[in-house]
């Protein structure tokens, strides 16, 4: 291009009519100035260290140079064509992204428990013991480099950054702080931005699948636009299909199965997103287009959707479609149908027929709910208390038991307080140990 004669030929319409501009931008890209040295090929370590000196920084870059936790300034937003360089995720390491977590909504029985982990407990141990609030805090501290031992994170270490970020956001959703997670997820902006998130060498997306899936829901919440989730799940599904095709071509069976199950999961999530935007008929139509995997889950999902809509006839049809191996699912659907028909005697009988040797929290809780609708609250309360005594503590169980306490006594706060102590004394497990005031209606 530079060899072209200086007089521009008018007939070459695709050329710029001001070649002087083209010529002036070209040489600048090939010059390795202090700002372009981040691929480190031509610069010595001492040279890159000297870049941190503010005197060498142009004034426009001084803001990023102030942050000493970052060894390099962020790369220029427009990498040159064909130039492969590691992505920089400094923008995810800013402390202002991560909100402080409120402890005011944690009952004292948990706040003051000796089971509270100390700040040096590693994240994987926190997760295994169900300390999700502590894990969320630890993940944010590690991301922003404010941990006690002060090892700061490499802004190019994509796998570590995203593992921590996923831990942070996932844990927030587990401690009833999903709206905070939605705010924090905004820092990721558009995960489809190839320049930010696709590795130039491998062409792989640098963000792990589970974070991309979680981001869809959080982004829809953050923007208050549930329709967006449906769209984004479909985008991911297109990619999953492509992966299935590639895995089939390369006879990689395990990869094919992995992507197939991910695709199926996305299909179910689309139905959930449709329900959240109140498009129940759309969700029903969509579920009908999915294939059952033989575990009875799809029949149950459909039945639950019909019940949610109030169409008991169609829910019963789903029960009749259950195979013999999924007899329990059939009985479960019919018991729920009885409850939807306000036929609590019949429903109670069905719940009682379930095998009591298998502890299923759902069956116990639903039986108790049935008893309360039948005017037998004392029996219902006994069942719920026994479930808690056996070590169960789902949000629903605690909420229903707390509601029962509210009905059974003016001094229900004492009963609820005792319940918080009982739950705080439970074993720590991945089911989650710490609960919030809302779980006990406090």
């Amino acid at each position: 291009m530079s060899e072209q004669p200086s007089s521009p030929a008018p007939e070459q319409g695709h050329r710029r009519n001001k070649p002087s501009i083209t010529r002036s931008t070209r040489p600048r890209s090939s010059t390795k100035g202090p700002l372009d040295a981040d691929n480190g090929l031509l610069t010595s370590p001492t040279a890159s260290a000297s870049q941190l000196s503010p005197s060498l920084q142009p004034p426009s870059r001084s803001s990023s140079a102030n942050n000493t936790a970052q060894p390099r300034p962020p790369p220029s937003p427009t990498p040159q064509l064909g130039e492969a360089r590691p992505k920089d995720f400094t923008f995810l390491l800013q402390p202002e992204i991560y909100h402080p977590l409120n402890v005011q909504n944690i009952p004292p029985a948990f706040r003051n428990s000796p089971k509270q982990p100390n700040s040096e407990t590693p994240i994987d141990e926190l997760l295994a013991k169900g300390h999700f609030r502590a894990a969320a805090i630890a993940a944010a501290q590690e991301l922003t480099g404010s941990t006690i031992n002060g090892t700061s994170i490499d802004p190019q270490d994509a796998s570590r950054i995203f593992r921590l970020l996923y831990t942070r956001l996932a844990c927030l959703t587990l401690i009833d702080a999903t709206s905070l997670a939605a705010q924090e997820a905004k820092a990721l902006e558009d995960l489809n931005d190839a320049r930010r998130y696709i590795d130039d060498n491998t062409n792989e997306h640098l963000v792990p699948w589970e974070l991309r899936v979680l981001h869809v829901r959080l982004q829809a919440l953050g923007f208050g636009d549930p329709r967006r989730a449906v769209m984004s799940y479909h985008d991911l599904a297109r990619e999953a299909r492509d992966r299935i095709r590639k895995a089939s071509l390369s006879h990689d069976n395990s990869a094919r199965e992995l992507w197939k199950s991910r695709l199926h999961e996305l299909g179910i999530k689309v139905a959930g997103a449709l329900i959240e935007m109140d498009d129940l008929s759309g969700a029903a139509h969509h579920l009908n287009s999915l294939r059952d995997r033989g575990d009875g889950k799809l029949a149950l999902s459909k039945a639950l959707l019909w019940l949610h809509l109030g169409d008991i006839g169609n829910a019963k049809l789903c029960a009749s479609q259950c195979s013999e191996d999924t007899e329990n699912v059939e009985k479960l659907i019919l018991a729920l149908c009885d409850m939807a028909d306000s036929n609590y005697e019949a429903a109670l009988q069905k719940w009682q027929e379930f095998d009591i040797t298998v502890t299923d929290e759902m069956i116990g809780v639903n039986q108790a709910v049935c008893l309360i609708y039948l005017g037998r609250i004392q029996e219902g309360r006994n069942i719920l208390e026994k479930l808690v005594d056996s070590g169960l503590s789902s949000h629903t169980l605690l909420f229903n038991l707390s509601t029962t306490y509210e009905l059974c006594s003016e001094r229900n706060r004492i009963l609820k307080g005792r319940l918080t102590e009982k739950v705080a004394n439970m074993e720590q497990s991945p089911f989650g140990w710490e609960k919030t005031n809302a779980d006990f209606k406090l």
Partner: protein
Amino acid sequence: MSHQAYPSHDPIKEPHSVSVKVLRLSQPSLVTQYPIDPPFSPPNTKSQPAPASLAYSGSNTNPDPFLLSPILNLPVSFGSAYVGETFSCTLCANNDLPPDAAKRIRDVRIEAEMKTPGLGGTQKLELGPANIHGALAGGVDLEPGGTLQKIVGFDLKEEGNHVLAVTVSYSEATETSGRTRTFRKLYQFICKASLIVRTKVSSLNSDTSNIKKWILEAQLENCSEDVIQLEKVVLDTEEGLGYHDCNWSSDGDKKPVLHPGEIEQVCFLVQEKGADNGPRLTADGRMIFGVLGIGWRGEMGCRGFLSTGKLGARVAVR
């Protein structure tokens, strides 16, 4: 539902040993869940969802990763009350004395009335279930911490202010003496319209036969805040009239789902059964077809039903 204690006629100033608690028993709801992969799981493997992200634990009955789960929550709040629904409510009278109290609580009774906005005034409500020991009317003795639970049902037919009045009476006995005490609590709520029905009748001129025909059209508008599914629309016709249903139940179509603000149009073909024994006319020359009944279901099967007033058309003199 706002509530207030009613100034009772009880001359005794000390606090009551029995409390009353109420909860509106709308349909229980299916709990939602958002299953996620556990953090720190090995990359590129399909792992089981994080147990804490499921609505309940340890089960093969959970349809994860689906949003809805089969475990049921008791009603979270009072919600909205709509004309056409059955209002159901549980009333609990509790002995709140400590276990070592000297007083004994005997003969606890609950009564309930509903005050409606119309001329009907106040209606006494029937309480279920019957006491396990003895007759329905008898009182129950309550141990400290004990609860007497009753359930009332009431078909909501009018818009406007409703007041549920709950009266609890019991006798408080010590070793040496006894007295009967009574208190009353009022719970007020507003009942709103759920469905607006607009009808239109047009006569269908038949040139050959003497049998008269009409088209009855109706627009059903969901003016509640919930999604409903219409279950049935029936015409209860007067004697001498027949009708043909032109709606979903006649051709096996799906039942229509109405979101808040949405309208479903229904249509009936009404005709005389014979030219001779047609229906009588009213004094002002109107012919009465009958009433239109509309049944629907809401979330988790919540049932609603309402019927219109008498529908008819002015008939030209033969």
